[in-house]
């Protein structure tokens, strides 16, 4: 047992670091650290650079363009990239539908859809949640009825992240309304340009626009867009959600937030001294830092366990709970460190191209919105209550 990086790991770290330095501009880095909004181009630029390097889909099987990295390499990559100011990847293609297609789709479908993900030319979004079915996917209501060589899809999806940029959506739909809730679910790929698909923005309380409602009104979907078999969508969804685990802890991103917080605490003052010298504030930073060190070890242990088989489901749920608590704690402290200067609401200041003067320092405008926005992390992707339910079920049945 050894915490030190091996010579190979150190070399890999250096390679990632150099790549990031060459790829990520200082402007992009500053945007990332200060919580300003990344444009579609920011994200695509980074993803395409990774694609050129062959690093966009490292978790995929090697024969499909994966990197065969050790768990520690994945972690090194994540930490270096986020530390260097990389935007978050849009995971819907890379980590969600991609692996599902590799595992379950026909060769034709793979050939049609995998390259767009690997080159980052196609933007995917996820059509799982519905009004009335948040964390309770089994009760979804969107229906697909087979008519000749098409499905006719009717229904509504919601909380659809980044649907406004998306080219394709993968949807869970109900194909057999008469059987047990989970049994009649099917997974379809739908072209967002299909007639009858309408995207309406949902403005969240931080003033941002990340999520959407997607209305599906008599949308014609060719049967070729059926993933795997009809009525097996629940199996694919579970596989997909299980896959989500790997990045669930968000250690790299939280490390960046912690670094940023510490740098602000050195600048901002209380009682005429830097906040880092305020014992209460120093304690609060230390507490979240210790939680993050702990999360990092939990995550490492989980990744390590995954190399020799599937890890216990409840550990992934724990990572989700603790990881989101840490993200929320970090955004809360980053707001708190600013004191009164977190109050001005300047959404325009978070958007590229806005050159007017801000009230307060450069790094202040994004702080409160980030805190407000981060409340979502314990709600979306299976709320933390659902995670606790998963743990309880696993543990009490053992």
């Amino acid at each position, binding site marked *: 047992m050894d915490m030190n990086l091996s010579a190979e790991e150190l070399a890999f770290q250096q390679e990632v670091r150099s790549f990031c330095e060459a790829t990520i501009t200082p402007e992009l880095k500053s945007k990332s650290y200060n919580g300003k909004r990344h444009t579609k181009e920011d994200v695509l630029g980074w993803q395409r650079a990774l694609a050129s390097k062959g690093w966009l889909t490292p978790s995929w099987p090697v024969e499909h363009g994966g990197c065969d990295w050790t768990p520690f390499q994945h972690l090194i990559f994540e930490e270096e990239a986020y530390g260097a100011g990389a935007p978050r990847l849009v995971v819907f293609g890379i980590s969600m539908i991609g692996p599902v297609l590799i595992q379950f789709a026909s060769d034709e479908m793979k050939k049609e859809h995998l390259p767009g993900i690997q080159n980052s030319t196609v933007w995917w979004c996820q059509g799982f*949640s519905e009004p*009335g079915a*948040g*964390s*309770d996917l089994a*009760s979804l209501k969107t229906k697909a009825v087979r008519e000749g060589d098409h499905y006719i899809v009717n229904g509504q999806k*919601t*909380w659809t992240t980044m649907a406004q940029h998306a080219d394709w959506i993968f949807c869970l739909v109900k194909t057999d309304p008469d059987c047990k809730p989970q049994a009649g679910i099917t997974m379809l790929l739908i072209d967002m340009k299909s007639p009858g698909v309408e995207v309406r923005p*949902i*403005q*969240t*309380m931080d*003033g941002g626009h990340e*999520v959407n409602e997607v209305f599906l009104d008599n949308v014609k979907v060719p049967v070729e867009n059926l993933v795997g078999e009809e009525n097996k969508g629940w199996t694919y969804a579970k596989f997909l959600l299980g896959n989500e685990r790997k990045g669930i802890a968000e250690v790299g991103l939280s490390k960046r937030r912690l670094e940023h917080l510490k740098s602000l605490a050195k600048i*901002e*003052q*209380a*009682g*005429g001294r830097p906040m880092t010298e*305020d014992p*209460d*504030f120093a304690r609060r930073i230390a507490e979240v830092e210790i939680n993050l060190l702990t999360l990092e070890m939990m995550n490492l242990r989980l990744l390590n366990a995954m190399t020799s088989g599937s890890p216990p489901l409840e550990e992934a749920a724990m990572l989700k709970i603790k990881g989101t608590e840490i993200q929320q704690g970090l955004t809360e402290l980053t*707001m*708190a460190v600013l*004191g*009164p*200067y*977190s*109050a*001005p*609401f*300047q959404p325009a200041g978070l958007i590229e191209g806005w050159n007017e*003067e801000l*009230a*307060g320092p450069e790094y202040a405008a994004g702080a*409160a*919105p980030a*805190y*407000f926005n981060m*409340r*979502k992390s*314990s*709600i*979306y992707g299976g*709320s*933390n*209550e659902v995670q*606790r339910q998963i743990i309880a079920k696993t543990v009490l049945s053992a």
Partner: protein
Amino acid sequence: MDLNFTEEQNLLRESLSRYLADNYSFEHRKGYLEAGSSLVAQSLDEMGLNALTLSEDDGGFGGNSVDTAIVMEELGRALVTEPYLGSTVIGTALLAGKPGDVVGNGKSVAAALTEMGGRYDLNHVATKASKNGDGYKIDGSKVMVLNATDADTVLVTARLNGDLRDQAGIGLFAVTKDAEGMSTKGYVTQDGMQAGDVDFDGVEAALLVEDAWPTIDKAFDQVNSAICAEAVGAMEAVTKLTKEYLQTRQQFGRPLATFQALQFRLVDMMVAVTEARAISLKASMLADSNDVVERNRTVSAAKVKVCEAARLVGQDAIQLHGGIGMTNEYAAGHYFKRLTMICQSFGDRDWHLKRFIG
């Protein structure tokens, strides 16, 4: 010892509550914010609320901080963004001695007390006051001044002598709306209030209080008592909203309210509100006291509890609502934002905990 509200106080609460129920639903509020204006401030003035704590000699009702707390609680419940706190409460508190000139007759004020780098310490005053004939000239900058753009008069602290953070040597001055050299950069706050940063460049000002620290300190306590009450109103409203949501919303085939773990979360919210209400009431009784130590301690104790409660209630209201709580179209998020900002106004939890320890 007497813990009962007077009949007048009960009437005050009821009439304001009725007015707001009729005129300040969440839908009304949305309209007012979109329009950028409303007649609500004027109605509150007509109800006499701006004169509530002025002495009867000054045409007021001789009320105290308990009366203010009653008003603020109702305003908090309705999430009123009109500047009652930022103008009337802080204005009358600072001008206790001679209110007639600047507040109370439909005139509005703003208090410019906070400076960049001073965080929550109102003794951090770099802004300078210098003699200018019979009067004074003010040079410096203030930030996060509530009601900055609309005030008829800006009350401003400026240093007459002493070092940056000395409590001694701070004067309280009045500057009129159109005074030359005063420039205001207005903005909306995260929770929908009007505020701004104000620069003073050789601005003519009238000295109101020469050795103003005791006045500022007392006003600070009165304002904190008032926002504690506002928070209590907001917390109670959002807790009720959450309760009703849990009772209505079905998941896994039954109402969310039947899940024991969620019930207990709701209970913890209610306990927090009850605690906040109890200690805030004490703060409102002591906020007008001249026993500085006891007043400071009690108000800080209340603010600490209110900050803890507001954080728990606000965060859990969103969490228990799930996705809908995150959206801007729904009231829960607005309560959450206001509660969050209350915790960062006029001293946060850590600041007040330190003052309590002494």
